[in-house]
């Protein structure tokens, strides 16, 4: 199996994602430059966090038009596994690969801290090794992670079990008191109806080693490997 981490100008979690995939999980991983136009031969594509194109105009709005995104959309439409983390999630909503939008945190401040997430649906490639209701501890670091969508979209997300993680407390209680950014229904991450595209604001790649405070990001990468029928080397 082979993974690609897309590098936009201004991506800054690209090296962290590369490290997690290649060194923690032993997945051969390439960087793919935003000016490239092919994603042939990859089993997993990651849109990393950062400030693509400086997040000018709107987070992820310019990245959507970069040459590689045509290949990314094509790859996703053919069922390829695609995960967008933080700024990558913003790029996914801007590209309409995922519904809804991410707007400024309700506090208007950038927020960086560990947060608890309650796992929703697990019948997907990204959380198949997790238990429904399991609580994960992952860091967030964003200024615009406030997920919003219209009522019809929200109902559809719920009906199709597309809400994969929500902000909660240590016991898994989902309520507004544990919502860091004002996200609709505490949504932290969703997948598309075809279940091959996953976008989330928290950073699983920052939670892959006990020495950094949490290994709860592992279940996401291991689920992907499990789905692809590959066992992690590391």
């Amino acid at each position: 199996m082979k993974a690609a981490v897309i590098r936009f100008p201004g991506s800054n979690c690209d090296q962290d994602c590369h490290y997690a995939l290649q060194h923690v999980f032993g997945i051969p991983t390439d960087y793919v430059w935003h000016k490239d136009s092919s994603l042939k031969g990859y089993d997993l594509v990651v849109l990393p966090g950062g400030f693509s194109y400086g997040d000018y105009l709107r987070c992820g709005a310019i990245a959507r038009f970069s040459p590689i995104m045509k290949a990314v959309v094509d790859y996703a439409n053919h069922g390829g596994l695609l995960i967008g983390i933080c700024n990558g999630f913003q790029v996914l909503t801007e590209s309409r690969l995922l519904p809804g939008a991410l707007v400024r945190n309700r506090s208007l401040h950038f927020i960086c801290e560990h947060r608890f997430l309650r796992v929703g649906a697990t019948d997907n490639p990204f959380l198949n090794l997790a238990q429904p209701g399991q609580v994960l501890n992952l860091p967030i670091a964003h200024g615009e992670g406030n997920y919003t969508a219209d009522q019809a979209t929200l109902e559809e997300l719920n009906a199709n079990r597309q809400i994969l993680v929500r902000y909660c407390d240590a016991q898994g209680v989902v309520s507004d008191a544990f919502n860091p950014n004002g996200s609709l229904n505490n949504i932290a991450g969703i997948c598309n109806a075809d279940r091959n595209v996953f976008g989330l604001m928290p950073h699983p790649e920052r939670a892959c080693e006990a020495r950094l405070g949490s290994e709860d990001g592992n279940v996401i990468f291991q689920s992907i490997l499990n789905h692809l029928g590959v066992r992690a080397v590391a």
Partner: protein
Amino acid sequence: MNTTAVSLPQDPEITPALIAKHGITPDEYALIQKILGREPNFTELGIFSVMWSEHCSYKNSKPELRKFPTTGPTVLVKAGEENAGVIDVGDGWGIAFKMESHNHPSAIEPFQGAATGVGGIIRDIFTMGARPVFNLNSLRFGQITGDGANVKTNRRLFSGVVAGIAHYGNCIGIPTIGGEVYFDESYEGNPLVNVFCLGVLKHEEIARGAAKGIGNPVFYVGAETGRDGLAGAAFASRELTEESKQDRPAVQVGDPFKEKLLLEACLELLTTDAVAGIQDMGAAGLTCSTCETASRGGTGVEIDLEKVPKREVGMTPYEIMLSESQERMLIIVEKGKEHIVKEIFEKWDLPYAEVGVVKDDGMMRVKVGNVTVAEIPARQLADEAPIYSRETQAKPAPVALTKIPTTDIATALPRLLADPSIASKNWVYRQYDHMVRDGTMVLPGSDSAVFIVREANKILASTSDCNAIYCALDPREGARVAVAEAARNLACSGAVPLAVTDNLNFGNPHKPENFWQLRECVEGLAEGCNAFNTPVTGGNVSLYNENPAGAIDPTPTVGMVGIIENEAHVTTSFFKDAGDAVILLGELGDEMGGSHYLKVLFGRKEGIPPHVDFTKERALHDTLRALIGKGLVKSAHDCAEGGLAVTLVESCICGKKALGADVDFGATGLQPEVLLFNESQTRIVISTSPANADIVLAQARESGTPARRIGTVSSTQLAIKADGNEIRWKIDDLSDEWYGSISRCMSEA
């Protein structure tokens, strides 16, 4: 000396008033005439004024800075040699780090002032060929509690500075993992914004800022030059006044996205063999980078301003040379390798231009097409600014306190915890991405930040410290304490100190009391650095920090970096498990001078500040590290502002899960306020599993460090007994005071 530099038709006439406006004294002007063998033109006058400003030349502080220890077996690049010093950390890896101030710009425009400060220090680090891996900052503002107009201004400055640092650091993707924030009247109107960056590199990757190789082309890369930040270095080298607000053009505007591209492009270029020399354009922009590279290379540099990328039309040579537009670099390219620069900068969509050539005549020559508009001997301009030894006048020695005021201790402790200087800084560090780059092992809020640099597989600990109240009362002792506290913070994390960078923030050096403070502090820092074997690798001097009420408290900020050889030795400040033994390493202490108890509860900055004995201090650190090395220490927290009581509370509540403690000091014979709130140095509170308590006590005493068991970690209460009295607090109440204080202040804004 030839006299080819012409005056331009639009140049104003050089008059004594114009010279004075450039901050150049009549004697300095005479020296300029002598160096040139003629009158300078307007452009040249501007060039001299920025290069001979304190910010660029250190003309008022150089003789003092020579007192710092700067050598040692681990020093790869010495202070002052290059943009930042480099220290060996083993296995062929080095670290480059430095601290720099952006005080004046932040006073005028807090967001951009602080943001560009971060941008500047990051450029200093990657100019060395190092990949920046983390940032710290040391900030000081006026008081933020209350609702006076000045308090609102202080909150605006605080909030703007934090947002500016967050904006730049978060976007460029370098974690801001620690630092310090203090609030004190003396910084009203003149906040201090000291920013620190550390990068890693292999020994053979160290890049030099010298213009080597006659005939090599000189490239300009990065953002276009605009009119922003005109003569910022000169602006930073005078006092802030009411009129300073009109100096807003002297504040630069930062673009972290562009710097991220510049950083990646430069590091990529430095892996090739195309670079003969590289220098960032920071203070004094194109002026400083051309004359400094020529001076270091023993060469000359000739540039043509027509070729410089500009974002505005009609800029004069004076404006181009003095612009401090951000995100620009000067690169001396090996002749014949120009295509490599072009390929890499085109890949990153960054402007670049060949603007000049290295010459053998020692001159910095600036042309516009065929017309020479400035021609100055580079070495004299860059390195031979006049040096001054200013007059000193000692301030009166601090007076010993005769009586310590009493108080209701039950309410005094929560009040101290809620003081913004002591309270949790989570409102600040939550706004900084402190986890990007996947290396933050100890999150902000412990004694020092601990970061594993994956590239090098090295665990580094880093802290910045300075108690300016002590420095105001006794500058020498205060500076000594700053170094000792930094080393103690590192020891509490399990680290061995390696080296120091400093940021000397003082008032106008022409006032003899201010200059005396500078000298005393430098000598105090030097004593401390010698005591802990930590050479000074560089830093920054910021003078003229004044407001209408006078100079700031002298603030020699110490940034110290250490190394932790074994991952298992990384130690945090907070208690881990109920039932663990709480042990005080060091004495109970009794020094109340300069204490936060007096300042916060009684508004008094008085007394003789605590004295530090370096022999005892070193012994304490060695003892602690030995205990940590044996796996006997579960937490270690240094005793500082607010004394033992605050240290104990922080040990209880800093962790993920708040704990309590039952503490019994026995019979001490001390006034309770003195026992709980004195700030004597050389003390650390540790916790250990109950089974190891006696071993820890025995080993500490054996190595000559006083040690006593003072209590046991519990769950929901802090109970302190001494001399027959007992006071109890609910941990949740204390935690709320401490954790939420700054947010509460800021939501009133």
